[in-house]
């Protein structure tokens, strides 16, 4: 189709010039047609990139659901024929059969039967916080994922699992598949005591499965899991394409002829597409930020902000500009964390909106938090309401605001005496400005404001007002 058109354009151009006065504008029309064709091709390519990203999210999430319920053969079927799984330091398993057996042995199913799990087996592998980079040619992709696992055997033992996945995907005959899964176990910790109770591993920490079912090849790089602080390699350290989108949109005035109407339609589609790309770029950006926070990489995290961007965390106050923000983050610990420190701040449940002109974005995220330091474990929960700016096609953070819902002691939970109040401003690392809103966390409760109106009614979220005006409530 494309070749025919390129051939066609110069032919009509010549005819118009030589013979035909009614087509006096043909030259410019043909140039416009040619430009429009080029533009449509670009829109098609960029659309394929967004489609690839959502496809990869779908495959990885399907993978999690398969592990959950013992569908290990179906999980292995998500891989290419020579796909591989690198599992912790156990080694590399290649091919669907080996991958199926690997996950079956870890999950507790049977390699001699179909899908399922024995009574009392719990094997939940939540696949979270996608950071997906689709290659420019649209045929391969890489993604970082957080796995939060709930494991165990009823009435015997139960565990928390924490891992980072760095995966590669490939499009084979039009179908996206997993080609490589690098599964970096951070810990499998007993529920009782949690990760804070873990002792450092000494020497070889190959899993029981790895010993009984040896890998096909050793890992390229060995590492120590938690309580050591290990940063699984990032696929995107020098490649920022995952947070790239179109620059803010320009308004075009199109002539009211047949080509002009198509140009206007292309503008409309391009605008929608730019905003769809931006939504995914912002989702990636927040994931990227979260992975840096996890490992105490304050400088890298702060580098994702605009020059006057703000960082507000609970009641610590507001830090402004990357340098100040990196300093504020040291309230969480030293750059790079310390041995035995867990700083898991997952970025979850994204609700992202991009402005009509593609210049600004807003994001609500959930972050229920698992921490450990000095042998003490802690739970936390809260919601981010953030803002982002499109800096000529690269998305940056202009505001991170984490509203703390609760802090709770790991051993006692988040009720009664387990509740830990939110901390105020630090005198050691003072903020640039006090908190924008003063509040107390649990046992106090409050509604964290929404950046967006109700997705169905388009009205502001005003439930408390509606309650006070509801005649049904006054009767009761």
């Amino acid at each position: 189709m494309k070749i025919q058109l390129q051939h066609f354009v110069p032919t009509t151009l010549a005819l118009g010039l030589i013979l035909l006065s009614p087509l006096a504008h043909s030259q410019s029309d043909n140039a416009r047609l040619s430009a429009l064709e080029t533009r449509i091709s670009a829109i098609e390519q960029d659309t394929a990139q967004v489609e690839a990203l959502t496809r990869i999210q779908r495959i990885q999430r399907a993978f999690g659901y398969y592990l959950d319920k013992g569908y290990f053969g179906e999980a292995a079927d998500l891989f290419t024929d020579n796909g591989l799984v690198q599992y912790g330091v156990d080694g590399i398993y290649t091919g669907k059969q080996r991958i199926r057996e690997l996950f079956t042995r870890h999950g507790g199913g049977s390699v001699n039967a179909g899908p399922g799990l024995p009574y009392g087996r719990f094997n939940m592998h939540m696949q979270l916080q996608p950071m997906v980079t689709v290659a420019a040619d649209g045929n391969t992709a890489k993604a970082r994922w957080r796995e939060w696992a709930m494991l165990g055997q009823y009435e015997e033992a139960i565990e928390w699992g924490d891992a980072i996945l760095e995966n590669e995907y490939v499009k084979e005959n039009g179908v996206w598949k997993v080609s490589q899964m690098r599964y970096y176990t951070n810990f499998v910790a007993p529920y009782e005591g949690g990760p804070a109770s873990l002792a450092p591993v000494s020497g070889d920490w190959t899993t029981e499965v790895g010993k009984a079912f040896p890998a096909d090849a050793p890992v390229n790089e060995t590492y120590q899991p938690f309580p050591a602080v290990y940063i699984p390699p990032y696929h995107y350290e020098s490649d920022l394409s995952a947070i790239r989108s179109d620059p803010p949109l320009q308004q075009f005035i199109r002539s009211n002829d047949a080509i002009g109407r198509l140009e206007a339609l292309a503008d409309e589609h391009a605008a929608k597409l730019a905003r769809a790309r931006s939504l995914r770029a912002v989702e990636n950006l927040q994931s990227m930020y979260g992975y840096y926070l996890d490992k105490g990489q304050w400088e890298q995290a702060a580098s994702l902000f605009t020059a006057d961007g703000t960082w507000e965390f609970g009641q610590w106050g507001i830090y402004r500009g990357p340098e100040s923000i990196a300093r504020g983050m040291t309230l969480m610990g030293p750059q790079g964390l310390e041995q035995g420190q867990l700083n898991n701040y997952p970025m979850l449940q994204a609700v992202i909106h991009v402005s009509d002109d593609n210049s600004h974005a807003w994001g609500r995220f959930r972050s229920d938090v698992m921490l450990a330091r000095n042998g003490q474990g802690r739970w936390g929960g809260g919601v981010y309401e953030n803002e982002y700016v499109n800096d000529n096609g690269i998305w940056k953070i202009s505001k991170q605001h984490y509203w703390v819902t609760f802090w709770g002691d790991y051993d006692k939970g988040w009720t009664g005496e387990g509740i830990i109040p939110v901390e105020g401003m630090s005198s050691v690392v003072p903020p640039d400005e006090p908190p924008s809103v003063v509040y107390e966390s649990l046992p106090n409760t409050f509604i964290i404001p929404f950046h967006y109106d109700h997705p169905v009614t388009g009205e502001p979220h005003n439930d408390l007002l509606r309650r006070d005006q509801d005649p049904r409530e006054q009767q009761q």
Partner: protein
Amino acid sequence: MKSILIAIGCSAALTLSATASAQSDNALFQLEQRLNAVGERIEHQQDISEVEILQRSYGYYVDKALWYSLTDLWTDRGTLEIGGRGVFLGKERVYEYMRVGLGTVGPKPGLLYDHQQFQQITTVNPDGTAEGRSIAFVMSSGGWGHNYYENDYVKEDGIWKFTKLHGPFNMYSGYDIGWLDNTTLNTFPEKFDPPPDLPPTTIYLTYPNYYVEPFHYPNPVTGMPMPAPDPAAGGEAFGNYSPADWYWQNR
């Protein structure tokens, strides 16, 4: 002769003109078709995001008992079924489920009710409906919950809404020893006020028993439908647990 030549020339020019114009129209038509096709693909991506926003907003509303906002996510005839409590029909019953069953509107001092919405797989169908599988990971004052959704949505006048929220339980436990012991096998209508309009669509027992809510989608790589669980691996078939057995064990 001259006039004949001119006439021939004109006729040739007209023929060429008509050909050029037809080719130009054809080019425009092809470009318009490509634009329409890519426009539909872009809208499909937008639909996925909008359905995700709907589902995730639901979670933020549950957190703070924002029952009006929650109910407004439904179509007038939408349904709700959570755990084994039966099916509630229509927006008003969705509101009643929340307001009567779970408490007044607004957050309560000292109580946590976080319903985190994770791992959404959204399938947008050509007929303007959509399906979604996702997880509710619950951290509440009562402890832990890990549950699935298999929900249906519809686009009405350009706006996505719930037509069906179907939330089978997977695991509920207290905090102290987690899911080691003492989990909730399921809920059922007799132990929940208000009563449902219809009985549960599926009778099943949750963890430590095995139950898998069917996936609405085929394997995203092979395209094969989901096989039934194999009792030889320990799995019961989908919700085939005898309702009578379940009733006598749990009454």
